[in-house]
């Protein structure tokens, strides 16, 4: 981290209090080169290199890369709004339940319209995104406007959204997903690469651009590093928090829709680990859990480190009991290396 962005992370720093926007803007280019993204990126490359040496004919194939990308795509989509929320200094634990709810709404709405045509599929997408956005807006309102701690608010909506999803399904998953949606989006490819991967890539580009180049992105960093200072600097913090959660909800709705397309069913009971996986990936990618620091590109790399490890360890025929331990060691190692790098930079 450069000294400038470090300054943002220190709440009582004078420079931040006076002119947060300029500080962030001037540091943008240095942030690209000196950010933790570079460290995590090297970690990922090292992993890929190790597995390529161990099993070149099986791990390092175009086919395997394509599948690893496709498998990680939905988590990448989830990790983008989670990055914004963490940078903003908040938490979102309700991700998994919002996704479960979005899945149910997507499938139910497509069944209600009937038919398996493109119109039905787009209607399902819109319903899922709106449903996710509604939960996000509720989270945002309670956190930003009412001023409740995001931890408690999203813990509550974690329960409420899951309960609502179960109310709508009576606890049974629904598998009546249009076959065209599964074939074209869920397992479809464009230029040999999964449609899911293309969609995730588009979301990533939007997230990186928004964080780095827009006022919205600067407000996100500023709010996360010091909400009081941001408020005094003229940022409508509560409105910004509402926006962030609402956009997050919309993205979770999209993720729900992609899950339905991929697995051709709702999986109401299968999303409990989503929030943790997303937060872990974002943290691994160098975003501070205390807000103010982070990057979307880092989060993408943070998603891929565990998924490449998991893939490579199976291919290397590592005993499954060791896989969990190996993943844990690698995660701790990556975080520790990042800490070391920051410490040396600070001197």
């Amino acid at each position, binding site marked *: 981290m450069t000294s400038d962005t470090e300054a943002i992370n220190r709440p009582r720093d004078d420079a931040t209090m006076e002119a947060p926007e300029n500080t962030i803007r001037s540091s943008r280019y240095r942030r690209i080169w000196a950010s933790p993204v570079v460290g995590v990126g090297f970690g990922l490359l090292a992993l890929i290199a190790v597995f390529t040496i161990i099993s070149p004919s*099986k*791990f390092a194939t175009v086919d*395997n890369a394509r*599948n*690893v990308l496709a*498998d990680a795509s*939905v988590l990448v989509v989830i990790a983008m709004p989670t990055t914004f929320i963490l940078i*903003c*200094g908040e*938490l979102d*634990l309700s991700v998994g*339940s919002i996704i479960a709810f979005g899945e149910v709404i997507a499938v139910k709405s497509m069944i209600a319209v009937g038919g398996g045509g493109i119109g039905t599929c787009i209607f399902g997408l819109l319903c899922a995104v709106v449903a996710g956005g509604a939960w996000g807006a509720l989270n945002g309102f309670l956190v930003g406007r009412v*001023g409740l*701690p*995001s*931890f408690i608010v999203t813990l509550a909506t*974690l*329960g409420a959204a*899951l*309960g609502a999803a*179960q*109310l709508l399904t009576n*606890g*049974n*998953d*629904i*598998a*009546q997903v249009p076959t065209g949606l*599964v074939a074209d989006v*869920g*397992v479809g490819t464009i230029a040999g690469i*999964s449609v899911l991967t293309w969609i995730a890539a588009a979301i990533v580009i939007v997230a990186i651009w928004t964080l780095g180049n827009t006022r919205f992105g600067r407000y996100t960093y500023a*709010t*996360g590093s010091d*909400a009081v200072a941001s408020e005094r600097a003229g940022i409508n913090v509560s409105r910004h*928090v509402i926006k962030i959660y609402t956009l997050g909800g919309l993205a979770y709705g999209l993720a729900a829709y992609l899950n339905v397309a*991929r*697995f*051709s*069913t709702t*999986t*109401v*009971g*299968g*999303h*409990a*680990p989503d929030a*943790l996986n997303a*937060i872990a990936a974002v943290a691994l990618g160098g975003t501070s*859990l*205390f807000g103010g620091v982070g990057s979307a590109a880092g989060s993408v790399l943070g998603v891929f480190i565990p*998924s490449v490890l*998991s*893939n490579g360890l*199976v*291919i290397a025929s590592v*005993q*499954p009991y060791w*896989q*969990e331990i190996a993943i844990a060691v690698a995660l701790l190692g990556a975080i520790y290396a990042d800490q070391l790098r920051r410490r040396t930079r600070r001197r």
Partner: protein
Amino acid sequence: MRDLPSRSRAVALAAVTAALCAVAAGCGSSSKPSSTSGAANASSNSGKPEAGKTFVYLGASNDPAYLSIACGAKLEATRLGAQLTAQYPTAFTAAAQTPLVNSVIAGKPSGLIISPADANAMYAPLVQAKTQGVPVVTALNTLTKPDPLASQVLADETAGGAESADLVAKHLGARGGKVAMITFTPGQSVPADTRWHSFEQEIKKYPKIQYLGAQFTDITPQTATQKMDAILARTPDVKAVVATFGIAGGGAATALRQRHAQGVYLVTFDTRAEGVADLKSGTIAALIDYKLRLLGAQAVDQAVAATTGKPVRKIVELPPTTFTKANVSAPAYKQYLQETPCPK
């Protein structure tokens, strides 16, 4: 942000981590307690001794397996002129189920049918039920020490695991081939562990089959897809895969679809909706499950016997049933699919 200083935020993160892990380990959770009332008209068979008896079933609201048991139990109770109420805890854990057991006992029902959330932790509450004079029948899950129980109505998971190995062996025939397995992280699901160990015992009987070992997955289909992808990348000539629970099977089927892989014989447990769809489309070759409505009905029968002084079978074990594309649409099989809605 504004409300939590950094220290308490870290503590909060740790706390929610623990909470989420508990939720995941308990196979998901339902967020609100819900109850479904049983048959309202319980008076038609008033001559029989079981008429007017009231039973309670305690299961989990978010798992179609327990909902199927509740359905079968309710239908059987109605048939006998008795009444059955299903209650679901907020999470499928001993901590959430115990207070529910206590409040059920306080209501003095004729009998309690329960799928215990924990084989050890639910022992004390169920001893309590017995001493209060409420006979207890376990359904599908049971206790490690069964002494407080009037009867245990279970699924023969060992036979199910063996069945999955036999199906694979029969499909591969004399030529044999490489076979992989995907199961739940060990020690967290008794059925998945039993199926897995039983499969490994049975598959040894077939010398032509090269067993590649098990990969462990969690409650999300994504992880199973990742594991299946890695298995296919490592062993492109894998001939058959067995998944020990429905979500793992769905994830594995997604990996096969994604690769447009042909000729991998996939056997899965549980007749969840997406499993049945994959069975019909041919991605999954066979689903193994138990007639859970029958299991629920038999649990009611044993509970009724216990309350009316008739002979009780201490253990009832249901054999596995294999569902294939050929039989899945036949009414005799279809009624036992977990996804089939319960007749009102």
